[in-house]
């Protein structure tokens, strides 16, 4: 068998169902963990990509969230803490035809793995990164994470933390990610749709999912994500649509210069902020990412979605052009430079 990578790819695209993506492994998350929902939406979404399972790879780091690959019936790599993105980068560069998902946590992806996140985002490989943000270290039983709020009391901060949290979505934007979105574990419809958009985007897709850790940080997102209050305290971003929220979308958000303002009971004439996910200008996305409960409804959905050439495509192009210019000949390479004969 050869490495000619296409030789590895099944050509016929089978029709797959949710069940085809379920493994025989017993799921080992705490009952009630938000991870279950994310797994379920992923397994619902995957068949719609019409990609053979053998061409999909899930790569994760270490954490509760990072056990994800064991439960998805594709190729999977449960790597080491914080490094999933580095494996994904190498794999996708070597094998551009594969579909690569990365699952990480707020500790895995932003604490020990923060640097790799920055560089993966700017390189824009065509991979999909899902960061489960439960604002806590779950697997190690409850220390604070880089997304835990200032003053948070945890096992390792009995007096409260003394550092400002990072905003994952803001960091992804600053690093130049071409697709940046946010969703919530319990808003299953929105979550599935967001995962689909992310998977379909060509380039690095970054999705932050607010995920409840009901054991060590229960209710972290209840204030705005609970079913009862959701419509009033979250705003769904849709490209080309004005920002409206509230039970009957009666409220909205407008801009005063570059400052966002909530408009209660905004009539139709109100000059509400219209979302543009496709603009190259990062300012709007930055304004939106600055909106947070309780001052603002929390924005959910796609912040940014633009097209740039991917890292692997640019490299393939260099390989092709180099081959055209100068067909590979190893003998020639061996004999290159100054040579001389000894008889």
């Amino acid at each position, binding site marked *: 068998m050869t490495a000619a990578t296409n030789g590895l790819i099944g050509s016929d695209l089978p029709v797959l169902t949710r069940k085809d993506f379920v493994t025989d492994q017993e799921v080992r998350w705490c009952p009630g963990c938000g991870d279950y929902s994310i797994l379920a939406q992923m397994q619902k979404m995957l068949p719609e990509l019409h990609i053979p399972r*053998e061409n999909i790879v899930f790569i994760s780091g270490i954490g509760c969230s990072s056990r994800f690959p064991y439960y998805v*019936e594709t*190729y999977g790599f*449960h790597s080491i803490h914080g490094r999933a993105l580095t494996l994904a*980068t190498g794999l996708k*560069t070597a094998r551009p035809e594969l579909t690569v998902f990365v699952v990480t946590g707020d500790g895995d992806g932003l604490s020990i793995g923060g*640097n*790799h996140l920055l560089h993966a985002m700017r390189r824009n490989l065509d991979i999909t990164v899902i960061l489960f943000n439960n604002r806590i270290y779950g697997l190690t039983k409850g220390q604070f994470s880089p997304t835990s709020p200032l003053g948070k009391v945890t096992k390792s901060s009995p007096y409260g933390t003394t550092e400002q949290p990072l905003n994952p979505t803001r960091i992804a934007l600053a690093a130049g990610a071409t697709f940046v979105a946010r969703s919530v574990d319990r808003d299953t419809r929105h979550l599935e749709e967001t995962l689909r958009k992310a998977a379909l985007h060509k380039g690095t897709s970054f999705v932050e999912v607010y995920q409840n850790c009901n054991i060590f940080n229960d209710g972290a997102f209840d204030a705005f994500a609970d079913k009862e209050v959701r419509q009033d305290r979250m705003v769904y971003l849709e490209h080309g649509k004005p920002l409206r929220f509230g039970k009957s979308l009666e409220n909205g958000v407008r801009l005063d210069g570059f400052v966002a303002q909530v408009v209660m009971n905004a009539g139709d004439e109100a000059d509400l902020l219209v979302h543009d996910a496709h603009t190259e200008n990062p300012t709007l996305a930055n304004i939106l990412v600055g909106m947070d409960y309780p001052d603002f409804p929390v924005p959910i959905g796609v912040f940014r979605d633009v097209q740039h050439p991917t890292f692997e495509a640019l490299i393939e192009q260099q390989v092709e052009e180099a081959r055209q210019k100068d067909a590979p000949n*190893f003998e020639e390479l061996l004999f290159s430079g100054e040579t001389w004969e000894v008889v």
Partner: protein
Amino acid sequence: MTTETKVQSHHVVEELDHVTIRFAGDSGDGMQLTGTQFTKTTAVFGNDLATLPDYPAEIRAPTGSLPGVSGFQISFASSDIRTPGDAPDVLVAMNPAALKTNIGDLRKGGLLIVDEAEFNASNLKKAAYASNPLEDGSLAAFQVVRVNVTRQNELALEGLPISAKQKFQSRNFYALGLILWLYGRVTDTTVKWATEKFKRNPDVLEANLRALRAGYNFGETSELFRVRYDVPPAKVAPGTYRHISGNEATALGFVAASVLSGLPLFYGSYPITPASDVLHELSRLRNFGIKTFQAEDEIAAIGATIGAAYGGHLALTGTSGPGLALKSEGLNLAVMTELPLVVINVQRAGPSTGMPTKTEQADLLQAMFGRNGDSSVIIVAPATASDCFYMAIEAFRLSLKYMVPVIYLSDGYVGNGSEPWRIPSLDELPKIEYHYAEPVEGDFNPYQRNPETLARPWAVPGQKGLEHRVGGLEKSGESGDISYDPGNHHRMTLARVGRVARAVQDVPLLEVTGPDSGDLLVLGWGGTYGALTTAAERARAAGKSVASAHLRYLNPFPGNLGDVLKSYKKVLIPELNTGQLSLLIRARFLVDAVPFNKIAGQPFKIAEVEAKIDEVLGLRGPYELEFGPASVLGGG
């Protein structure tokens, strides 16, 4: 072949078996170029040779300063030669700083050629000379030849429409011409090279050629040199030769591994001295389908390499000591997931940042043990610049067969040093085999081992029916599911260590140079090959019962190593560290090997090893290095 290069001359011609020359000057004086040009001529002439460049640590130190000195040493001979030589016979010093930093190495009675024009007050001050060494008699021990290179050169270049600076910069061609004359060499090779190099710049070309000729003629006409020397060609194997450095050979060797295996090469690396050249070489070869990836750090570099290995590519990462430390956690993931990849470590002087531009062999134990848990990898080490090519191929041959990471231990001396290399033809090279897992009936077991090699199957994404999951958690043999079963962990650990032990069946037996039994075996590894082998050879020539053997496979050891060790009354292990191979040999074979340790950022001198041999043979008292004790029992 000699005849055509013999040059008529009224000088006495004295024949020598071998000569060592060092060119030294300011970084700006083009000493590396002078050295390479002389090397090429010498190679084409048919001498065997070895060279060693010596760059300053700084990018650009101030002109004329001591840290700014750059040197290039070449040793060439009519018989085969393995090191750039201990003490130069000839030193060319282009300024006071070059003299100050190099005169200490020149052998007593050796020939010293200086550009007297540069020995002015300001240069002497920069070199921290209280008085002018050319006047104060401090050089009495040497034959000093004072040439006003700068001035002579100016005269030769008079009228050329180039700047004074450009004229000054051609001084090195003057010096080159002089030395070529001194050793009865022709200027053809250099003329050819210069003509090509400066074709866009005829004036500079003309300047360099004139300078070259002027230097050559100066030797011929001036009365400064009574004799000139002739070093006849060596009897080297027929074939096509090129000059190659260790880092070049390393890059070429890994390209060869790709060609021989048919697998595309992926190189993930983060720049670091002295390994960066491998990245530079490979990044030029996109046309060979080679994908080089400059990562954000060493951890990302090995992570990406693991990803490429998982994807079924020939996965290579490279670094130097501190970078290997950073890669250790990632390397352990490759050990645990049993993926084939190779890690290049071009060793430099440590610990920590240490002396980045200096050589050392002190990462052997880090390579063996620098990971948590019982984590065993294969370790190979090239012995010379050209050997880098062959050991690179070996590294992947073993890695792919046993599905285990391999560490390739080069060092700054091997990597930057260079030698003539007879270019092999492809069919002289071993085939490299690999097997991707094939679809199976029923469940696929990603940890079902090959009974002969204990290797697990390489199931790469894209293969239908082999969907599976790997990772850093312990896996149950066969199924590959996560397992906390005590017995399983015990057996898996033994299997992981066992794979590496099994590789002994693919490691060539250790060859001994000299008697296969006797008073003393000199055992070494890696870049010290030249000095050790030559020292042992000289000892034999002096009638001593001394053999030498050199390890290029460090883990596992060659199968016959135990027997070889037992065949000698004593074993001497010289290393550029505090005794790392010694520790492994003593632990494994319980032989009371004598360590010889030099940790100075410099290769062994042949004479140092000879002296230590005599000590161990009881032919002299305890031997000390010029700067300290020569034996430590430490090993890190």
